[in-house]
């Protein structure tokens, strides 16, 4: 094991990126720690979680398959465990760093900060990814999009290993040209039009760039997050003459199912904005079919 002073930051970064990609990440970047520390609010900065942190590594794995994007929402309303793949890669990366370089690393927990309730994350994985240059904020509630990989799930690793940071994306792929065209015709982009709760709005300038993005996150969250459902149901049951009837009402029973099985429908957004987003579903390497086709056309470096 090398001493820290013997580690070449550039080489280390490349080996980490290669590891991540080998394990399934599509994009990997290192965020400028100073920027993240300044933008993140107190209590949610990397140094709040890991005081000696030197680098924030962000990685993204592919979003849904093309099939998943296209099936009816009756089934899609319950999907959601793709993010687990990102967490697995990040978890492995933290072990990889400690094994390879003997420097402390942590897998950044994607969980909510229990001190602040159900909707405040410990860290903003989105901020890490944006500053690391693997995603840019979209009109769809600031969901990050990548010009090549479209919509990804992100995870982060913090380490005391100092790695050279990447720059944010030079260009924001959102809005796509077709979205700009639609916006000029009807005043809305697809994500705005097809949002089930109409929580998105915004404006686009004459150059086709975002000027304003408005996101009613509460409306978005109440579309799919159901943290309030269980206490409301229990309160109704307590007031009812027949509590069992309330608790076992078919709709209410769904919450018990979600609680026990842990289906993403209880905890995640509905993703309808992404299902109609031409970048999320149509980026050059946006789904496994496109990526496989691209791989087949790439020249073999061994020849």
């Amino acid at each position, binding site marked *: 094991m090398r001493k820290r002073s013997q580690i070449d930051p550039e080489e280390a970064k490349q080996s980490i990126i290669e590891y991540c990609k080998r394990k399934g990440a599509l994009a990997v970047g290192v965020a400028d720690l100073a920027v993240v520390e300044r933008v993140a609010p107190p209590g949610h900065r990397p140094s709040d979680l890991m005081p000696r942190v030197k680098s924030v590594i962000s990685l993204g794995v592919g979003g849904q398959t093309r099939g998943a994007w296209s099936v*009816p*929402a009756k089934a*899609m309303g319950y999907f959601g465990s793709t993010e687990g793949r990102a967490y697995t890669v990040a978890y492995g990366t933290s072990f990889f760093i400690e094994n390879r370089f003997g420097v402390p690393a942590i897998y950044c927990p994607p969980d909510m900060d229990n001190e602040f309730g159900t909707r405040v994350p410990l860290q903003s994985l989105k901020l890490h990814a944006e500053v690391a240059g693997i995603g840019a904020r979209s009109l769809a509630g600031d969901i990050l999009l990548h010009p090549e990989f479209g919509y990804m799930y992100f995870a982060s690793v913090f380490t005391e290993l100092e790695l050279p940071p990447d720059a*944010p994306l030079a260009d924001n792929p959102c809005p796509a040209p077709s979205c700009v065209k639609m916006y000029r015709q009807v005043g809305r982009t697809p994500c705005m039009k097809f949002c*089930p709760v109409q929580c998105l709005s915004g404006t686009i300038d004459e150059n086709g760039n975002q000027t304003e993005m408005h996101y*009613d*996150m*509460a409306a978005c969250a109440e579309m799919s997050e159901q943290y309030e459902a269980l206490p409301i149901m229990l309160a109704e049951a307590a007031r009812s003459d027949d509590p069992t009837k309330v608790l076992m009402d078919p709709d209410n029973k769904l919450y018990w199912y979600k609680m026990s099985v842990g289906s993403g429908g209880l905890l995640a957004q509905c993703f*309808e904005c992404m299902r109609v987003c031409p970048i999320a579903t149509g980026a050059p390497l946006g789904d496994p079919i496109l990526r496989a086709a691209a791989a087949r056309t790439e020249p073999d470096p061994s020849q």
Partner: protein
Amino acid sequence: MTQGLTREQLGITDALVHTYGEIVFRLSNNVQHRIGDPIRTLDLDAVEAQRPALGMSDAQIAARVGLTEQQVTYIRNLAEVERMSTNNFQRLLALGGSKRFRVERFIPHEERFMYSETALRLRAALEFKPEAARRFVESGEWGTDTFRAWLDHWATSTPERLAVSGGNISLTYGALQLAVRRLASGLHASGIEPGEVVSVQLPNGLEYVLSYLGITYYGAVMSTLYMPHREAEMANIMRHARSRALICLAHQADFSPAQTALALRHSGQLPDLEHIVVVGEPLEGAYAFDTLTQTEPQTLPTPVAADPMLLLYTSGTTAGPKGVPHNAHTLLSNTRLGVPEHAVTSDDRFLCAAPYGHLFGQYSLHLAWCAGAETSLLPLFTPSAFTDAIVSERPSVVFAAPAQLSACLATDALTGRDLSSVRMIVTAGSAVPAELVEAIDALLPNGTLCQLWGMTETQAGSYTRHDEPAAVAARSAGRPSPGTEARIVGDDGTALDPGEEGELQVRGSLLFPGYLDNDEANAAAFTEGGWFRTGDLASIDLHGNITITGRLKDLINRGGIKYNPLDVETLIDQHPAIAQCAIVPLPDDVLGERACCFAILNPDASVTLEALCEYLLGHGIAKIKLPERLERVDELPLTPTRKVIKGQLAARFGH
């Protein structure tokens, strides 16, 4: 979340929550507004300037508002609970996602259709035994039949085939479906929702057919009033049914149903009655039927077989009206299973003399609509009009009550007329005299008479089959219909052997589930095993043919000896001085009951009780069955199906 500290420890009061809830929510991540792309472009001053709009942490909000961080966390979480409704994911489940979703198409759940209290009451009455329901479904007896499914099927597959005719009416199935959709759309637009009751008092005309199909086409429920019903019956039945609307004539010969209904509504006796739809001349305060039938067809709710579709009231010969709810399972499965038994096909043309307000008449419509056959309308029965219609319309299947057939025979209306088109006359409504069956059968060169037994509670419980000789119909109402079990039970509740007389009990997929809101009647009507006590006296022969011999409550209980007066009545009806009679029990202090004979005498005829008894004794009638009182009357009270209402006669003696 607040480290286990209580509201009191945090200093949280309702006033604090009320005062700061809005601003805390606004400053939090719950509402986000971004200008430009400041993070990606590393314009960190812009990030700082936009922080309140981008969404702040609880600590930042606390510093901004002047609260502690824990107070902000507490207040923000409360605000989220208050503002966030649940079940929003149902939006996608309702409409589908991606580009299928259109926010303008989404109707919030709280704004969607909800069955009214009245509708739910009726739905609650349709409770069947689960084990029986399982059997009916598994056996295929209960299926997916609805009028709408049948009508839509025939309108699509054979739109040009005649569905309704008679007089100057000629409506194909395609045209009938359009007319029905128009009326249904009009009713629905007027606020009559699925599951709600529409009463109908109409003769056997096109308006009745359209009303029946129109009401049930989108899941509303029809309830019939018989044509002889007047103010008292209208008030009682419609109040009990909680009718939302009434479709009726502007005027009958001696009576204005529409004006009566308006007056009843005005006086507050019919609080649920919202609309009166009048057939005939317009009436202020009432809808015109013709206006409703001109409504542009709309997309309408689709009923299913389990939905209530018909609420009938028993003829009530001995008691007040009892509501009999049916759904398509009970009525239309019985019909579908009956079609092959009667050999009904789409080539048949039906003519019905019995009133459509009664289930016997409705059964003729059900059979026709199930098979895609034609119905020729006969709005008003007279022997000559009936016979003329048979000759001119050439029906193949005719429905008529025994009394109607008797009237035809008495007036010789059928004699010498061309009845060659008729392959079957179906009759039901009371114990049918063998002589009547034989006489009618003899007049049919190409047909036979079918005797059917049924009740409001059952529709067609048994009938003779189309290929059976008239002799079977002369002595019985045939075998049980498919899906129906029948047995004869003695006084002690045990099943009797073939040939023995007792009470007829039935059960099966045709049977209504129970009277509406009448626990007392239901307790009396059903046995533990789910058998329905019909109240009819009958016997079943070795071949399973059921012979109806009278009504249980018409038995005379003379000093503990019970007997059925039917054979006595039959003999008296044949006495040259008597046109028609009915024997009812007369209260007696010593014997309990004695027999009283009410008789209509033939013109210029006279007879004494003694002479009548001599006549009966001469025909072998036992002394104990001789009437002990003779009351001469000008007419006997009759049900719409021409059954003598013995209860009204008995009531004259306080029975």
